[in-house]
């Protein structure tokens, strides 16, 4: 038997018009942690979906050799039965079902033909312990935050008899603490003999954990790096990923903040009637003209809620306290009012609530500001095309035409469309919620560059981010949130990872 548990040979996969994979070769050694890296849309997720049978045998070309045998997976269960378990980029959970049902759906504990619910609960508890998650297994998943959901996904994978575990950007939604936990978990699993493939855009993680790493670019394998030979460094990875060297991940800029406060919150609280508790408590914060403010914090610390409460109270919380915009007190009842007042909000979940996937790029970019290109309620379509074209060019959106459906774009390009839509509103305050989540370094750099350009033009940016590097690299000042409260404010000169984490976990 060869040292490889998995060999994927000459894999090609075409979607109508797009060659997502082009003769990819990919080998994974038994018992190693193998990272798969590459730009957005490089084909990483697609390769893993081919492996797991989501794209069944026959819909792709090439050969999969697993444990020395050529495999033909016709459906997902075929791969699961051989011990390949995959955790997808888009979480696959059932919001209306309980945690324990979620963990064992598709893999039920049976007694004869019946489900043994009691055993299920007991086993679920064990799995939750394994991933260090302390929730009641009878909680409904829809009542949990995105971070906890990720852990439940992992618990679910562990409940199966797994030999090869695949994680598609598992830490994208996690804060540093939880990410670290997860990486520790992976190392433990490795000790138990479980092989692991992990896709990640967080290069630091890759460097700390990978035994080897394969870089994919434009649907082709570029190179496999070996940690034991010291090949896995940030520079080599990036060079292979983008085909050029990037000197600095965060583009340099001059500090150009002015004194006028664009936004100020005083004793700001938001009460969620559905949850029956405060999601934001007594927050005091301000953003000055031309500033980038970083908003850091752990998962579930209420940063998204804070943003939503500012952005026209989009989730209809009960609000208390004052919101001043350019020094004037404001009360918004709907996002449209906030937009009118000059606030824009790029959402965290671009597919779920950011974009119109069934519509083309042009309609998406104009969607939030149709008034600007219309007279008496009638749209000037030529104007619309011009505007869309402008943002497509300036943001380097890769697409065949302005009429391409947004659902067909890769994650990074979708994020750029989302950004374009909000820039077209012409805001003075731009709120970015996890602006680079799941985006490759190249695209990240472009987005950072755009941010810098915007503040030079006098815009202010409130950036919510779980990536501390990004927070430290881009912000002028940092606020740290925890449990719905602002736990502290750090000027960038005084800020470092330790201080932020200290405040966040206070």
């Amino acid at each position, binding site marked *: 038997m060869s040292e490889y548990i998995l060999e994927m040979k000459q894999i090609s996969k075409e979607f109508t018009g797009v060659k997502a994979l082009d003769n990819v070769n990919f080998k994974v050694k038994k018992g190693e942690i193998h990272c798969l890296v590459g730009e957005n849309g490089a084909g990483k997720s697609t390769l893993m979906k081919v492996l797991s049978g989501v794209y069944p045998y026959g819909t792709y070309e090439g050969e999969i050799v697993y444990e020395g045998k050529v495999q033909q997976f016709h459906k997902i269960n075929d791969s699961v039965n051989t011990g390949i378990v995959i955790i997808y980029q888009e979480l*696959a959970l059932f919001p*209306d079902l309980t945690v324990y049902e979620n963990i064992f759906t598709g893999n039920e504990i049976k007694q004869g033909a019946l*489900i043994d619910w009691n055993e299920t609960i007991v086993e679920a508890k064990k799995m939750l312990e394994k991933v260090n998650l302390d929730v009641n297994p009878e909680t409904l998943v829809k*009542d949990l935050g995105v971070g906890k959901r990720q852990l439940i996904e992992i618990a679910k994978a562990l409940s199966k008899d797994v030999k090869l575990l695949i994680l598609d950007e598992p830490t994208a939604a996690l804060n540093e603490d939880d990410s670290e936990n997860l990486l520790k978990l992976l190392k433990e699993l490795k000790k138990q003999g479980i092989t692991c493939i992990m896709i990640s855009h967080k290069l630091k993680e890759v460097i700390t954990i990978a035994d080897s790493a394969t870089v994919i670019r434009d649907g082709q394998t570029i190179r496999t790096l070996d940690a034991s030979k010291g090949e896995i460094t940030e520079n080599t990875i990036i060079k292979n990923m983008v085909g050029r060297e990037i000197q600095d991940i965060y583009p340099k800029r001059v500090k150009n903040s002015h004194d006028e406060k664009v936004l100020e919150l005083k004793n700001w609280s938001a009460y969620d009637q559905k949850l029956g508790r405060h999601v934001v408590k007594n927050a005091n914060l301000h953003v000055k003209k031309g500033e980038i403010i970083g908003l850091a914090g752990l998962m579930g610390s209420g940063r998204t809620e804070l943003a939503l409460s500012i952005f026209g109270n989009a989730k209809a919380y009960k609000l208390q306290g004052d919101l001043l915009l350019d020094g004037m007190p404001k009360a918004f009842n709907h996002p449209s009012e906030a937009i009118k007042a000059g606030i824009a909000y790029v959402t965290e979940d671009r597919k779920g609530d950011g974009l119109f996937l069934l519509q083309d790029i042009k309609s998406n970019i104009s969607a939030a500001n149709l008034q600007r290109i219309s007279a008496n309620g009638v749209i000037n379509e030529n104007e619309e095309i011009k505007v869309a074209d402008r943002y497509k060019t300036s943001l380097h959106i890769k697409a065949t035409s302005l009429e391409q459906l947004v659902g067909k774009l890769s994650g990074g390009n979708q994020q750029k469309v989302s950004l374009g839509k909000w820039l077209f509103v012409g805001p003075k305050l731009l709120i970015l919620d996890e602006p680079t989540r799941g985006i490759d370094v190249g695209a990240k750099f472009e987005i950072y560059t755009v941010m810098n350009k915007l503040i030079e033009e006098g815009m202010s940016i409130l950036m919510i981010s779980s990536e501390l590097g990004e927070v430290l690299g881009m912000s002028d000042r940092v606020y740290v949130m925890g449990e719905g409260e602002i736990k502290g404010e750090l000027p960038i000169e005084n800020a470092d990872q330790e201080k932020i984490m200290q405040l966040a976990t206070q």
Partner: protein
Amino acid sequence: MTLINDLKTLISKNIRDYGMYIALLVIFLIFTILTNGLFISSRNISNLLDSAGYIAVLAVGVMLVIVIRHIDLSIGFLAGFLGAIAAILLMQYHLPVYIVLPIILILGTIAGLFTGFLVAKVGIPAFVATLAGWLIYRGAILQVTEKTGTIIVQNDAFNAIGNGYIPSIVQINGLHLLSLLIGVLGIILYNFSAVSTRRNKMKYNFEVVSKQIFILQLVFVSAIIAAITWILAGYNGFSWTVIIILLVVLVYHFLTTKTVMGRHIYAVGSNPEAAHLSGINVNKITLIVFGSMGLLSALSGILFTSRLQSATTTAGTLFELDAIAAAYVGGVSAAGGVGKVTGAIIGAIVMASLTSGMNLLGVGISYQYMIKGGVLALAVIFDVITRRKGN
């Protein structure tokens, strides 16, 4: 008074589940008072349950269809069509009942599977696929009855399904012995299973309701079973229709709550994408649910034809809307993933009670429609509001 407090939290926590039962109780009370007790009489309750039968089985089927986020409009005319086929096989081909019934049930399942195929494999939205089915079965029923018009079924065994009662063995004080026995058996089984579930949970150290509450619950449910049995035993005892409804409820309740397949149905309803990625064959589940819908449509057609002892050219008209309304009154959620077999049955009984009660009171037909519409709206508003709170 911890008992009272326990009760309060129990009720407020489960208000959505109990709401329907409370509504049913209120409807029963109101009509009983307004009709001077006539409504609750043995005979009326027996008739009411019989008249709800063919809608109740459809409601169970369509509840599951709604749980997996689809809809089926074709079930009414499918039931009518299959009922007509049953009558033809019995009367024109002179096949015996024990052959006709399985044939019809199999035909129904095949028809349902075909709908499921269109929805799951071809990918037509269920609303349109079944709207097409509606037209097609409507034409089909006209076609097969064209030569004969209404087909009278002269077959005692078949007609007993919709009109007969289980044998009484012995009549005691005008009460129906076998029915009483069934009732007693039901109570014993219920108590036994409840106690063993509780014991089991305690063995695992899971949280259970307090002992007092538990006993209260046992007494309450036992009393209800006893009351229904007593009422029915006072007329002709359990009808075959009621027995069939009970069987359908038991089987479907069991399938949906205890088996892997049942869980997969709810998983698909809750998040089809996630279900697919969890290795659940969504297409298979869709096929199964539509297949079961076809099976229950066939059963409904049999119940209806047998009840009228004849197959008419318009049998099945708008059954689908009645069944869907019953399912919604019974608390199924249009967003998918939520719905109970018992709910669907209670929903069907609520609607049948309204008809029966208003008929007893001599309420005009135009008001009957409006009141039913109002009740449907209220039921869903209640559901929506309690769900919102529950979140």
